[in-house]
C-alpha cells in the first residue's frame, strides 16, 4: 500500500494530517533494498500504522520469527497495536503457498494489510519465472480476497519486501522485471552516507503512475529510533535511478 507507506514516511516528517484516504484497491507495493537497508523496519512501521487504523488485523508473514522488535517509530509501538498484528512463519515456499491458497478457509475479520518479508528467500527455492509469477499472483489474489471479504470501503493492502543484490545477474534482473509487472508500485531503499553514529537510507517511492514520485531520508539512530524526513530536493537531482530502470514507467 503505497499510501500507507507514504503516511508512515510522512509521520516522521511532521507533515500535516493529510487527506482522507479510502484505502480501497490501492496497488500492491514492492519494497526493495539491499541487506540491512531497513525493509523489515519499514514493513513493521506500516504494520503498526495499519493496526492503529482499526480496520482489521494485520497479517505479517516472514520465514523466521523476528529476533527482536525492529527499530520503530517510537510512539506507535503500543501493545494494543502490536496485538493486532498476526505473525506467521511459513518455513518453506510450499508452506507459504499453502497458507495463501487456504487463506479463504479461515473466517473472522479480514486483514486490512498483508505483509511479506523476505520474498527472495522463498523465490530462491524455485527460481523459475512461472514459480515466481505464481507466488506473486497468489499474494495478489489473497489480498484481493481479503478486500472482497472486508466489504466496500475497506481494501486489504499488500506490501512485499524483496532483498536486492548489488550486482545482480541477468536472471535476477528478469525476475525483478517479472515481479514489477505484478507490483506496479515500488519503494527503493538505498544506503546513504552515514552521519556519526547513524545509519541513513534514501527511500524512493514510485507509486506506479498513481501519484508523484517522492523521496525521503530515513535515519536509524544508535538507540534504534527511526526518523524520517523528506529528501531535500536539489535542482538537477536525478541520480537515483540506477536500480529502478525498466518497470517503473507509468
Amino acid at each position, binding site marked *: 500500500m503505497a499510501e500507507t507507506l507514504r503516511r508512515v514516511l510522512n509521520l516522521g516528517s511532521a507533515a500535516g494530517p493529510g487527506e482522507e484516504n479510502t484505502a480501497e484497491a490501492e496497488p500492491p507495493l514492492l519494497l526493495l533494498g539491499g541487506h540491512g537497508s531497513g525493509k523489515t523496519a519499514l514493513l513493521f512501521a506500516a504494520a503498526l500504522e495499519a493496526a492503529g487504523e482499526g480496520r482489521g488485523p494485520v497479517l505479517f508473514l516472514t520465514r523466521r520469527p523476528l529476533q527482536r522488535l525492529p527499530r520503530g517509530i517510537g510512539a506507535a509501538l503500543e501493545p494494543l497495536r502490536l496485538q493486532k498484528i498476526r505473525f506467521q512463519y511459513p518455513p518453506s515456499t510450499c508452506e507459504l503457498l499453502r497458507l495463501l491458497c487456504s487463506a479463504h478457509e479461515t473466517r473472522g475479520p479480514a486483514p486490512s494489510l498483508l505483509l511479506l518479508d523476505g520474498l527472495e528467500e522463498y523465490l530462491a527455492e524455485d527460481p523459475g519465472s512461472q514459480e515466481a509469477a505464481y507466488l506473486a499472483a497468489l499474494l*495478489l489474489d489473497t489480498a*484481493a480476497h481479503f478486500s472482497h471479504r472486508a466489504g466496500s470501503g475497506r481494501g486489504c493492502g499488500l506490501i512485499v519486501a524483496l532483498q536486492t543484490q548489488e550486482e545482480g545477474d541477468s536472471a535476477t534482473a528478469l525476475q525483478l522485471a517479472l515481479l514489477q509487472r505484478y507490483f506496479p508500485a515500488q519503494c527503493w531503499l538505498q544506503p546513504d552516507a552515514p552521519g556519526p553514529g547513524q545509519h541513513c537510507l534514501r527511500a524512493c517511492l514510485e507509486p506506479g503512475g498513481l501519484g508523484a514520485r517522492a523521496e525521503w531520508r530515513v535515519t536509524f539512530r544508535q538507540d534504534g529510533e527511526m526518523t524520517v524526513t523528506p529528501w531535500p530536493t536539489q535542482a538537477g537531482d536525478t541520480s537515483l535511478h540506477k536500480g529502478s530502470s525498466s518497470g517503473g514507467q507509468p
Partner: protein
Amino acid sequence: MAVAARALMLPAVVEELLSEMAAAARDGAPIPDEHLLSLKFVFGSSAVQALDLVDRQSVTLISSPSGRRVYQVLGSSGRTYVCLASCHYCSCPAFAFSVLRKGDSLLCKHLLAVYLSQVMRTCQQLSVSDKQLTDVLLMEKTQEAS
C-alpha cells in the same frame, strides 16, 4: 475487481476493447464482427483459439462459500489449467513462456478465454467447498511439473 487488476497489465486499448464488448454483449448474442476483427488484430491466433474455448464451454468459474473464486479452463489437449480471477496468471506453459519470459504475448488463450467469457457473460459455474477451492489453487504446483 478483475477490471482493476487487468488494467495493471493490459494496455489501455485492450481494456477499451473488452469494455466495449461487455457493453454490447447480450446473452447468447454473437460478438459483432468489428470486435472480432479487433480481437484478431490484437491477439492474433490466440483470439480464434480463445473464442473456440468459449464456444465449447471450456471455461468454468469455481467458487466456494468464502466468496473466493478461480477459473478453470479445459485446454484443447484435454488438460485443465487454472487461471486466477483477480490478476493475470495461468498455469499453462504458454503463459510462462510467451507472456512471462519472452514478453511477446499479452495473454495466453486460456486467460483470453476467461476474459471473453466474462465479457460475454457465458461461463460454466461450479460451487465447491472451501477446502476443495484450496486444492484447486494448489493444483497448479503439480501441473507445472509435466
